[in-house]
């Protein structure tokens, strides 16, 4: 399992590198090589590091460990077919972790990044109404049950296109340089990452790599069903490229607009699933 975890991390970092490359090409730049993010992680891990004097020391370091740990949990949940709710809980929790990254340093830029991450969490919570739709259709939230249901009835994507859309929106909001990535927009320097440098940043990059893999993999498992490994990898790449296109072709929204768009989508979905619940 350790091998899989390391593999997932490196593959996720590779996907993020491809993400950067695709965005750069669409914008007419050469862009960095696709393994740039892997090099990045290694580079940071070799740098001299310390903890800023203003920081809350335990939290500053502890939050890095928590960040990696929660995505290891998420990986295990998807792999073992655990409850989808745990997975969604971890998606939300990642926002709190970003919040912790930002606030623990005492830097004003980090603080604003952290505040923005909580704001965007507020607008993402309702997106999880799609859980209700999945329960209505499959009668269960265990990923193993959902894959079993898909083996009989075909992909969930066809049965619940709107839930898949909601989840795609969540993926998009977790991608860097996307329309909803207000937590790392440039007017607040690097947002919540500003003060985490050196090995702490390397730890954060490990978390990001694992996060990207788990997000894409869980989307495939939940909405397309169990597939052979090569198919999964190819689909992850495909989804990642589609996300890159979405990120490259849309401007980053202002924080207020970002929250408004997400909330409106969530409200519409809530009505849809309420109607679905009444019909079914």
């Amino acid at each position, binding site marked *: *399992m*350790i091998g899989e*975890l390391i593999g997932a991390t490196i593959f996720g970092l590779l996907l993020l590198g491809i993400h950067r490359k695709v965005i750069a090409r669409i914008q007419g730049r050469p862009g960095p090589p696709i393994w740039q993010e892997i090099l990045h992680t290694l580079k940071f*891990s*070799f*740098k*001299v*590091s*310390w903890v*800023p*004097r*203003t920081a809350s020391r335990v939290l500053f*370091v502890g939050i*890095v*460990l*928590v*960040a*990696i*740990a929660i995505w*290891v*949990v998420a990986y*295990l949940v998807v792999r*073992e077919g655990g409850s989808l709710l745990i997975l969604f809980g971890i998606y939300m929790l990642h926002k709190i972790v970003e919040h912790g990254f930002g606030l623990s340093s005492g830097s004003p830029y980090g603080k604003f990044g952290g505040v923005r991450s909580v704001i965007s969490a507020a607008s993402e919570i309702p997106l999880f109404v799609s859980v209700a739709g999945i329960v209505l259709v499959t009668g269960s939230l265990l990923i193993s049950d959902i894959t079993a249901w898909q083996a009989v009835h075909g992909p969930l994507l066809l049965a619940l296109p709107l839930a898949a859309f909601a989840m795609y929106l969540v993926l998009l909001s977790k991608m860097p340089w996307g329309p909803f990535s207000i937590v790392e927009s440039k007017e607040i320097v690097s947002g919540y990452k500003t003060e985490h440098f*050196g*090995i702490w940043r*390397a*730890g954060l990059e*490990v978390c990001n790599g694992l996060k990207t893999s788990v997000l894409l993999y869980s989307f495939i498992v939940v909405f397309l069903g169990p597939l052979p490994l090569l198919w999964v990898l190819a689909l992850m790449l495909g989804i990642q490229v589609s996300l890159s296109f979405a990120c490259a072709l849309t401007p980053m929204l202002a924080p207020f607009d970002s929250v408004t768009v997400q909330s409106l989508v969530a409200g519409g979905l809530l009505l849809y699933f309420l109607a679905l619940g009444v019909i079914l």
Partner: protein
Amino acid sequence: MEKTTALGIAVLCGAAMLLSAAGAAAGAVPPILAAAVLVLAFPAGTIALFVWWSAGEGEEDIPFLGY
């Protein structure tokens, strides 16, 4: 943290993960325990590894000490 301590923690975490994974595969360790070990040891081991290879040898110039 001392360089050797960091290496020790990293090795310990790696060994714990390997042992629990092997034990779970052989059926000697309950899978939930192996998972718990993985969750605890993976982040700690990763950071300890980074600390180990980025830690100074004690011969460098004093780095910029911040604010």
